[in-house]
């Protein structure tokens, strides 16, 4: 079947080349049928890559180790659930996933715009096929997922144990969907510039895709944070890692675009800014992929090879140069149709919000690429750590949260000071009350966290007031009960109120971040069974060790051969709170030099975190058992000398029993963090608000509203 996969890639490349040529010829010569043929080439690309992806997926599920990718990233011990996701754990597989998702999203975008903006869509088709062709070329010439070895190895290296986590099934596809969706507004933006059609139509056509990109990217980032918190043994959810930052940057510029596009739609303003944001978002999405794939920066997530660096640099260079050329050469067409009516207007708040978001992106860009910049300038690689990022991003995040509460209560075009003052009264009062309550409760250190709580309170009151006033107005008009009026209000103004819900979710999320990062208690120490320690208000006692062994081919578990852990009793003021069971999994390695027994546990050990998560706080624990003691090492070395591979697991059983009978002190990491749960709850609120905003209004409602507005406009004509 590898032949079929390789054939699909060659066919996909040919389709991309043809589609680019047909689209460009069609739009340049005015022959519509060629443009349509180019659009159909995108559909064909989606079909071909679906077949290619299915071939690779089947190879993983069938343990076909003749495929090098399968042998490198999967094994019979890898559970089927994770084998299905192992496709995108390899460089080659993730390139295929990228190209496949791009083809699917591009097909959807071009299908929905098939009767509109034919010129713009034809250029966009060529650009999207250019991206598709680029990724397919990488698979054809640099990293093919369908390379085989004969004879096939009997066993594979296995999936990285760190990736054996349920959210890893959906985190990469979500991120990649976000990245690939970012290229759609970019393609249409470039298409609009090339076709010299820079009115709001291209924005209207791709707005939903920009929103979807934002939503997928955001959820992908949050799932990654959840994985980091629940699976990695360091206890954090965000470490300002290069790859994390790479996904955050297009999300920030995408957020800015989602706000500023409304100004262009309504007022014909900010055309240069919007097109620049779209081009920057698309380019940053490609740069994000480049960071993961090139291995150019150190990251726990980067698993690419150096071979892909040059092609990506060329692509990014072309994108940047092309973007600058197009914006500069079309600057006369990008002039604003109106000016700001008032500094006290929603347009002004959106502008401020855009500046903060782009400022945040710039800070993160500088910090992320600083090692490269430093090496280029001084010859020495230097990097900046989380404190550097926090110094600049925390104040900007505070301003951003505050603006998310101010914007919704300011009218478009012009707002009067009196109205604004009236609407700010309750939010300001709640923010001050929050401040007083915190001070009265003795929370006086960490002023930035306190400021975030106050800003959050401001947002809740401001948006809560907006919902109430909207529902009250609706009730007065339609004579409905308040809950019915509220539901009808949201249903009829999905974008506006979905967006407000997103603002609330972001405020909740930031409150969770501020509380958990500023007021956490952490402790790292060694304990023997029976010993206790205090972490914040909690007492944690190491009750006894645990040890389990998993038969080598038992696919029901995550695939670890040996798991050593502890039973921990968590109490608060003498009352039992929770029993926690952190452990560390030891996985088989393929290194024969470790011996028959050593190789069963010689792979990368992975911490299995145990926590008691709650609405007000999480008690988070991780263990690092000591298996390097002379007694345990002796069992391994004797087993290596005397036991054949089929009996080696017996020595692991001895090792586990010895560990239980004579447990050495284990290293523990305890964290008590307040309000972490609210980060995930905030994320879910954002997701819900995003879905409401993106969901199309029923066509019947749209038609009815259009007819009503048409009648109103006609009424205005009659009066005139």
């Amino acid at each position, binding site marked *: 079947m590898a032949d079929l996969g390789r054939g699909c890639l060659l066919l996909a490349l040919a389709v991309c080349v043809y589609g680019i040529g047909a689209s460009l010829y069609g739009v340049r010569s005015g022959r519509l049928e060629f443009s349509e043929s180019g659009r159909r080439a995108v559909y064909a690309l989606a079909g071909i890559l679906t077949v290619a992806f299915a071939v690779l997926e089947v190879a993983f599920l069938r343990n076909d180790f003749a495929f090098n990718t399968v042998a490198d990233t999967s094994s019979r011990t890898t559970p089927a659930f994770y084998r299905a996701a192992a496709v995108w754990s390899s460089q080659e597989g993730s390139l295929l996933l990228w190209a496949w998702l791009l083809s699917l999203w591009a097909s959807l975008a071009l299908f929905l715009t098939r009767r509109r903006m034919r010129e713009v869509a034809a250029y966009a088709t060529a650009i999207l096929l250019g991206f598709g062709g680029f990724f397919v070329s990488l698979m054809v010439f640099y990293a093919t997922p369908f390379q085989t070895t004969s004879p096939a190895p009997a066993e594979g290296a296995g999936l990285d144990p760190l990736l054996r986590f349920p959210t890893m099934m959906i985190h990469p596809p979500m991120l990649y969907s976000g990245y690939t969706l970012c290229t759609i507004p970019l393609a249409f933006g470039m298409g609009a510039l090339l076709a010299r059609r820079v009115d709001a139509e291209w924005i*209207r056509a791709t707005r939903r895709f920009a929103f979807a990109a934002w939503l997928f990217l955001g959820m992908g980032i949050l799932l990654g944070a959840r994985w980091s918190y629940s699976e990695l043994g360091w206890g954090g959810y965000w470490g300002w890692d290069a790859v994390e930052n790479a996904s955050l940057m297009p999300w920030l510029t995408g957020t800015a675009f989602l706000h500023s596009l409304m100004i262009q739609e309504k007022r014909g303003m900010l055309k240069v800014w919007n097109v620049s944001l779209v081009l920057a978002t698309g380019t940053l999405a490609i740069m994000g992929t480049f960071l993961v794939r090139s291995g150019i920066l150190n990251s726990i997530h980067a698993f690419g090879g150096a071979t892909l660096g040059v092609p990506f640099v060329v692509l990014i260079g072309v994108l940047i140069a092309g973007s600058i050329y197009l914006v500069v050469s079309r600057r006369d067409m990008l002039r604003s149709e109106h000016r700001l009516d008032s500094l006290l207007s929603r347009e002004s708040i959106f502008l401020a919000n855009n500046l903060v978001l782009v400022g945040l992106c710039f800070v993160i860009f500088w910090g992320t690429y600083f090692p490269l910049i430093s090496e280029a300038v001084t010859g020495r690689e230097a990097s900046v750590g989380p404190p550097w990022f926090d110094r600049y991003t925390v104040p900007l995040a505070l301003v951003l949260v505050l603006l998310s509460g101010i914007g919704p209560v300011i009218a478009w075009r012009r707002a009067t000071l009196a109205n604004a003052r009236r609407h700010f009264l309750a939010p300001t009062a709640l923010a001050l009350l929050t401040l007083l309550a915190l001070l009265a409760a003795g929370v006086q250190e960490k002023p930035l966290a306190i400021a975030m709580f106050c800003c959050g309170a401001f947002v809740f009151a401001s948006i809560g007031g907006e919902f109430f006033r909207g529902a009250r107005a609706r009730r007065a008009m339609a004579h409905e009960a308040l809950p019915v009026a509220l539901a009808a209000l949201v249903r009829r103004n999905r974008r506006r109120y979905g967006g407000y819900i997103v603002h609330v979710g972001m405020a909740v999320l930031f409150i969770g971040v501020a509380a958990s990062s500023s007021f956490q208690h952490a402790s790292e120490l060694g304990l023997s069974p029976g010993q206790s320690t205090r972490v914040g208000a909690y007492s944690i006692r190491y009750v006894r060790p645990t040890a389990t062994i998993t038969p080598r081919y038992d696919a029901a578990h995550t695939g670890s051969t040996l798991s050593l852990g502890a039973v921990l009793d968590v109490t608060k003021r003498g009352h039992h709170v929770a029993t926690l069971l952190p452990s560390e999994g030891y996985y088989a390695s393929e290194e024969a030099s470790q011996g028959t027994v050593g190789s069963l546990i010689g792979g990368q050990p992975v911490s299995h975190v145990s926590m008691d998560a709650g609405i007000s706080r999480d008690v988070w624990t991780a263990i690092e058992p000591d298996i390097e003691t002379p007694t345990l090492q002796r069992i391994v070395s004797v087993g290596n000398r005397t036991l054949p591979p089929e009996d080696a697991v017996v020595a692991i059983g001895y090792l586990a029993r010895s560990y239980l009978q004579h447990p050495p002190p284990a290293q523990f990491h305890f964290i008590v963090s307040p309000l972490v749960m609210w980060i995930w709850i905030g994320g879910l609120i954002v997701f819900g608000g995003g879905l409401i905003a993106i969901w199309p209004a029923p066509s019947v409602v749209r038609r009815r509203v259009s007819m009503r507005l048409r009648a109103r406009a006609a009424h205005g004509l009659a009066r005139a």
Partner: protein
Amino acid sequence: MSVLALVLIVALLAAVVFVVSAPLRAAHRPVDAQSAERDRLEAAREAKYREIRDAELDFRTGKLSREDYEAVDGALRAEALEILNRLED
């Protein structure tokens, strides 16, 4: 290359050629220059309707005073009418 893979690739190629060449096999359709302008005006009309609705909601939720609302609404309706007139032309 196995025979099965070869057959599948040829079948896929035939399907691709069929799908991609369909518009070329159909009758020639010239670009309708007017439709592009109509699309642009329809987009502008939808955006203007949205702006009218937003201004109304801003007024009803107390963000705009009556005088400001009437001024803004009047201007928006005039702009909407201009677009409607151009669409009807």
